[in-house]
């Protein structure tokens, strides 16, 4: 049960993120929902990469040779960096939208339709 806790958290975070991006009308809250969804995926990858009793794959003075593959950590690091860039770009877009439209309510940001 304890080992499944990360996966339970992943499911909870995913539901939270999806609820936020589907049911919130504030642009910033939607962006937060996207960030939560990203964290859920990152946590999933980290949880998948976890091995009980594994050590970091550094051979110098290693306490045991029971090492974990560092790929998931590398993936998450990359994914976090991409997430930061994404959030920065989305937030800067929302700043311009707020300046030009005077609102962050997605129901009102609909000059382009039909």
């Amino acid at each position, binding site marked *: 049960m304890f080992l499944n806790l990360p996966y339970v958290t992943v499911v909870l975070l995913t539901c939270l993120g999806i609820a936020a991006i589907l049911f919130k009308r504030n642009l910033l809250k939607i962006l937060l929902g996207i960030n939560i969804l990203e964290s859920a995926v990152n946590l999933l990858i980290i949880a998948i990469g976890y091995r009980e009793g594994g050590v970091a794959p550094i051979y110098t003075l290693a306490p045991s040779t029971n090492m974990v593959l560092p790929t998931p950590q590398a993936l998450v690091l990359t994914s976090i960096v991409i997430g930061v860039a994404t959030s920065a770009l989305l937030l800067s877009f929302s700043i311009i939208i707020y300046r030009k439209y005077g609102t962050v309510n997605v129901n009102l940001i609909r000059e382009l*339709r039909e």
Partner: protein
Amino acid sequence: MAVDGLVLSTGYGLWSPLAWIVTFVIALIACYLLWRLGVSSYKPGTEQSAPYLSGNKADDPTALHVPGGNLYWGFIEGLKWYYDRIIPLHTGIVTDYLIWMFGVAAILLVLVMVVI
């Protein structure tokens, strides 16, 4: 698939661009010959080139251009039942777009999980 020279075989039919070009050139020559048969007394700039409207004075041609928005009015009017449903779907609200995306994912998930 059979590939010989310039004939694209689609398994069911054939398409040869060369034959098409030959036909096109022949048609062009025929058009030119027909055009040559016409009278050569046409003079631009005289009343010959003015629009003729049963002897009435024709309107200014710039006012007669049908703007793009009015073209296919009948088509859209005839399919009004369809357009009345389909155009409002493009709401412009980003949440709706995301709901469509998640909806398609849900339907596909059910299909893949249940059917296969």
